[in-house]
């Protein structure tokens, strides 16, 4: 028996079709009809109908074939939304804010956002200068570690500092992650509030040094607790990610990145000649880093003015510059910003934008996220199998389609998130009714 299953499995793996963007239009109708979690999706955006018009005034936008972009859509009921998605089969669904009136009446004017989840977008391309394994749209397990760390730091800050609890993490379909903070207070932050939270969490700035952008962050005399906490997460992984996996300082170009993070010209030149003296070209990052740390420490303890004042925290600063989350803060700041919905299909990769749980983020593998082609294959295989096994077609319909596929885990994460969210929404609803 066990042998049989293995052969079956290997057959199934061999048969997994690769994704072909050209047949996406043929696959989307099946995906939306059978797999897209319409009900949970509605449960999310309706927030237990805890506030007036919270669902029906929400702006949704669809991207159809040939980049046709339809904005200001809105829906009264779950059935209407589902029907519209299934008939239009959008390439992409974006979620905007809840408006003061129905967004579809936008031509009448006076449309303004009332609430919207606080969102964060971290994109792997912003890490291109610190990864050597891939570049651009590619992503592998090595560079995914940047994302893992970024998500952890951000999640911890949102929970501990701001007291937010309902945080949904979503893989963006190719090389990035999105974060949706859905607490009531977060949803009701105004533009100023969003700006403040975004700036609070954004500690890195960029300066242009000789034509290349260098990351800089400045720790003062005392280090803010949120930065200190981030450092505690960054430090243990620095060696693994930067020195081993990426071997970032292993090339002259990589080494110059380290040097550019030093803001003082004279100190930079001294360090450069020191490192050149002690190392051959192409020395391993680990030994370069060790020398750098030793050099910085000895300069500091020997009372060098630059190194003991302005560059006092340079070792920590470099670590943060390389590993602290690189946020696209304009996404967070904008009350009006549209963001791609979870469970969309990324048109270039065919991958599902699946939610993932932060506690298991290290195990999340972006390279094995199921593609739409694979999912359709899986439901078919499942259906065939049950047909053969039981010859009981009415039984099949009882199992939800997404449970038959590798998308299952993502839906479970989403439902767990919803369960907690709804508990709170119902509480606030009933407490509203009491008064």
């Amino acid at each position, binding site marked *: 028996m066990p042998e049989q299953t293995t052969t079956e499995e290997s057959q199934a793996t061999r048969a997994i079709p690769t994704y072909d963007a050209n047949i996406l239009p043929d696959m989307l109708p099946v995906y939306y009809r059978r797999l897209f979690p319409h009900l949970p999706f509605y449960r999310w955006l309706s927030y237990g109908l805890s506030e007036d018009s919270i669902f029906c005034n929400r702006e949704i936008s669809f991207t159809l074939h040939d980049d046709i972009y339809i904005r200001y859509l809105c829906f009264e009921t779950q059935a209407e939304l589902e029907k519209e998605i299934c008939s239009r089969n959008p390439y992409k669904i974006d979620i905007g804010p809840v408006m003061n009136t129905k967004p579809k009446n936008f031509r009448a004017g006076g449309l303004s956002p009332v609430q919207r989840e606080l969102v964060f977008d971290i994109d792997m391309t912003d890490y291109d200068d610190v990864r050597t394994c891939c570049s651009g749209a590619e992503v592998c397990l090595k560079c995914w570690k940047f994302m893992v760390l970024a998500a952890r730091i951000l999640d911890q800050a949102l929970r501990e500092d701001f007291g937010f609890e309902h945080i949904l993490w979503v893989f963006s379909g190719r090389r990035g992650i999105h974060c949706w903070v859905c607490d009531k*207070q977060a949803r009701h932050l105004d533009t100023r509030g969003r700006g*403040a939270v975004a700036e*609070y969490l954004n500690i890195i700035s960029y300066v*242009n040094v000789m034509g290349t952008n260098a990351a800089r962050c400045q720790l003062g005399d*005392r280090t803010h607790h949120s930065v200190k906490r981030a450092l505690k997460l960054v430090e243990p992984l620095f060696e693994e990610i930067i020195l081993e996996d990426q071997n970032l300082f292993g090339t002259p170009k990589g080494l110059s990145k380290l040097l550019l993070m030093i803001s003082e010209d004279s100190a930079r030149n001294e360090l450069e000649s020191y490192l050149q003296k002690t190392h051959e070209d192409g020395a391993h990052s680990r030994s370069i880093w060790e020398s750098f740390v030793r050099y910085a420490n000895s300069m500091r303890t020997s009372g060098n003015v630059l190194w003991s004042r302005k560059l006092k925290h340079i070792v920590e600063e470099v670590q943060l510059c390389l590993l602290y989350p690189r946020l696209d803060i304009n996404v967070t700041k*904008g*009350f009006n910003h549209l963001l791609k919905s979870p469970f969309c299909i990324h048109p270039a990769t065919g991958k599902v934008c699946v939610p993932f749980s932060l506690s298991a983020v290290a195990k999340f593998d972006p390279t094995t996220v199921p593609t739409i082609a694979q999912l359709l294959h899986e439901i078919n295989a499942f259906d065939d199998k049950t047909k053969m096994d039981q010859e009981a077609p009415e039984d099949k319909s009882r199992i939800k389609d997404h449970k038959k596929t590798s998308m299952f885990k993502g839906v479970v994460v989403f439902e767990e998130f919803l369960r907690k969210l709804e508990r709170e929404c119902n509480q606030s609803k009933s407490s509203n009714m009491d008064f």
Partner: protein
Amino acid sequence: MDFHLKKRARNEIKVEVVSLETKYPHNVMIYNYPPIDDIQIEEFEDLALERLRLLRIFDHAGAKGLRLLSDDWKEYVNAELSREGLRNYLRLCTTSGANATGAKHEADIQTRRRDYLSHFILRLAYCRSEDLTRWFIGREMEYFKYKFSALSGPEIKQFLEANNFHFQPLTESQKDEIKDGLYESTAGQSVTKIELLDFYKVPFTQVLDLVRGRRCYLNAGYAYVNTHDLVSIVGTKQQDEIEQGLQAAKLLIDDVEADERIARMLKALHTSYTGKDYTVSREIAVPIESLDQLSKTSMPLCMRVCHEHIRTQHHIKHGGRMQYGLFLKGIGVTLEDSIRFWRDEFSKKMDVDKFTRSYEYNIHHNYGKKGSMVNYSPYSCLKIIKEMAAPGDCHGCPYKALDQTTLKSKLTSYSLSPSACEEIMYFVSRGHYQFACGKYFMLTHNSQTEVAINHPNTYFEESQNLMGNRQKRNPSSQASQAKSKIHQNLIKGHADRSMLMGQDDDELWRIAESQERAYQSQKGISEAFDDDLDLTEIVD
């Protein structure tokens, strides 16, 4: 607002005369209740102009690059207040009101009244457009913070009580529990000071400016702030009041302006401030063929950098397109020319179809021809300096964004002498970017007169004036232009969005973002499938 009430009150007999002392009990007041006094039209005008002079002082201080409430800043503001004959306001800002007696006290109360009334009058003049509103709130808040900073401990307490702020300081044991966080994260106070100070627990949304700068301890959605930080909370409240007041004023503006005398005055005030309004493009069209030349002679560094980037890279990211595109509109490049300019460059890297689909909308949008139909203003220096450049961007203020070595070599490559570079770098290293820009202007134009650069379009205009290419705009045409703008605003008030803090760009960001993504993803598709579409033609 007041004017309704005023008209009605005219025929009523005043039953109760409230003393000015009870009405204006403090030097610092929250502007929450619109005044219902009767005042003469002359006084109305008088107050308005006085307030304007006051606020302009803060504007100049900011433009000089002085840090708010720093010693230099105070010195400058105090000197200007005396020079402008605003000594009574100087007293409000620098002396504690409680100690004054007799005639001095009487005078202070009169100033408080003028302060209160004039603020509300200016609301009527500054609620008209987003730019005006932003300017007004910025200056008002600087003034407020200055006044608040002069209050003594007991006065602060009195103020808080009078305005229904109820703060309970943490008990010693509560403070002890979080002392590590307070030590690490309370900015601007030494550890020994922190031990002595009272701390208060407030929702983080009340002290957003402290949150933004990571200047306080934050835990579970609450900020822990000390007595010195209370100005932040009170300031937030004041700002909310002013913002809401401006919104309300905007709805009433038609009624107010039914009175011809007031309308004339308010409109004149408006033009007497704005002076430069670059939203509407100028009468002289600038041909795009002249841009290469102009970029060398008359564009400030921030625009020259963008221009050169486009010419060499044939692409520029969204932030740069906004900054440079709106600037071009401001100097008089027509919509048609603008599209031609961007298309010619971008199509060296992508096919024309792609450009039309992904970027043309944006240009139309900037000219107010698509989408929200708002005619966007070119960015001012303040906005450009505030922009954060990300990797691969070339917008923002080069004096701030470039590191000093790079900046120096850039200036040298524009054939500035080493000593000239040093003169510019002097300001750069002190963070006075606009001064640096002004210096650059003087050096490149061989001009001896100092120019204050607050707007890239001002730079351009000044340069053109100096070179004799352009007449100074005569005031009458300017006034009529402004007038027609007011008219526009009144007609389609809804198109003029009233929110603050750069929300005007939201829609653009969104569109640009999604289009950029779409472009990226398409690029991704073609890369993934080795489709040799137009990508082979990319020349780098």
